[in-house]
């Protein structure tokens, strides 16, 4: 079920019989054809168990199931939309940034605080995104929201990328992240450059960064 960008802030999805699409509730802008929208009580996949997991992880953005035959246009809050196609790899993204995704993708939650020790625990606090994040895995597409345009930066061995926690949107692939500081203690006390913390992403994959330091 491919997504097509209509504008930088609006995406169109093909809905085919027998296939399911999940979207953030209320994000439908228009549709053609015979399409049904059902609130997803469990907030996505894996039934009640998945729902409980997401509740605990605070990754339970209200979703709806989209089924039928036709095309649906999605957008939300005038935010920019980025379409990410997955080919067996895993996408890590906050649930409230997920505009819509293919039902063929396996949805889960992941504890991010386990990476990078104490600094990993601090990560959630600094990014304001909690200690858990939503994962999508498999073959299919997801539409992700960002404030401002999205920059895609590849991460490779020996080529880590540092990201401002507030500008971080999502990442994919086999990537480890930890919080790092680019300044000494002297700078931290009283006279910061405003860049006290960065997320250091290393491994192999891609990170998506928004052109803004504002939350959605």
């Amino acid at each position, binding site marked *: 079920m491919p997504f097509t960008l209509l504008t930088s802030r609006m995406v169109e999805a093909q809905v085919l019989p027998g296939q399911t699409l999940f979207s953030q509730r209320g994000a439908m802008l228009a549709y053609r054809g015979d399409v049904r929208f059902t609130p997803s009580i469990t907030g996505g996949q894996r039934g009640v168990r998945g729902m409980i997991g997401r509740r605990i992880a605070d990754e339970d953005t209200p979703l709806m199931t989209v089924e039928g035959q036709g095309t649906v246009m999605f957008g939300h809050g005038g935010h920019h939309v980025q379409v990410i196609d997955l080919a067996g790899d895993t996408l890590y993204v906050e649930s409230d940034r997920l505009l819509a995704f293919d039902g063929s993708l396996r949805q889960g939650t992941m504890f991010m605080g386990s990476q990078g020790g104490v600094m990993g625990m601090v990560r959630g606090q600094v990014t304001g995104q909690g200690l858990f994040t939503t994962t999508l895995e498999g073959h299919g597409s997801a539409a992700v929201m960002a404030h401002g345009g999205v920059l895609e930066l590849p991460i490779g061995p020996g080529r880590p990328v540092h990201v401002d926690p507030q500008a971080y949107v999502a990442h994919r692939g086999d990537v480890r992240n930890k919080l790092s500081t680019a300044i000494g203690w002297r700078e931290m006390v009283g006279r910061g*450059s405003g860049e006290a913390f960065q997320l250091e992403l290393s491994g192999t994959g891609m990170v998506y960064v928004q052109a803004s330091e504002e939350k959605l």
Partner: protein
Amino acid sequence: MAQFRLQGSRVLAVDLTGDSVKAKNGAMVAYEGDMTFKKKTGGGEGLRGMVTRRLTGEQMAVMEVKGHGTCYFADRASEINLVSLHGEKLYVESSNLLCTDSALRTGASFTGLRGSAQGNGLFTTTVEGTGQAALVSAGTAIVLRVTPQTPLQVDPGAYLAHTGGLKQHFQTGVNFRALIGESGGESFQIRFEGDGLVYVQPSERNTIGGEL
């Protein structure tokens, strides 16, 4: 010298090879390679520059970014405009200045009444020398040429920056009666005369003039 390039219209990429740039505090969104970020207390011209900026309210929260690699800057999804300076002086509000080559000198200059009508204070920031600067604007800015034969009037809220030998003064397009009560919404303009370039953004800041 640091290489400035736009990555889309809202992200500035700066390639550094051991050199440095000055950037708005907190504007880094990502980097590759090794970078250090250091807050600059003044923003150039040493103690004297700092004192001037304190007095004028053109106090920039500036950091020095130094390193090897690529650093990406953005500011609240604003559009970014690149300006190449070859010895001339650029006048711009400090709030619209995203990043400057460290070879450029920054200072403050008196703008008089214009600044207060823009809601920006009486002083503006100047950038001088040879190198690149990046400005943020609300919407993509256009560059308009001013010649002695073709002066230009600009809405104070849409004015972004200017370079060259330009004289500017403030004018009102309305008489006293229109000022009290009704107005056309375009009560004040800045008039530019001389030879130079004016950067205009497709959006109007809230100004004192704009509310009349």
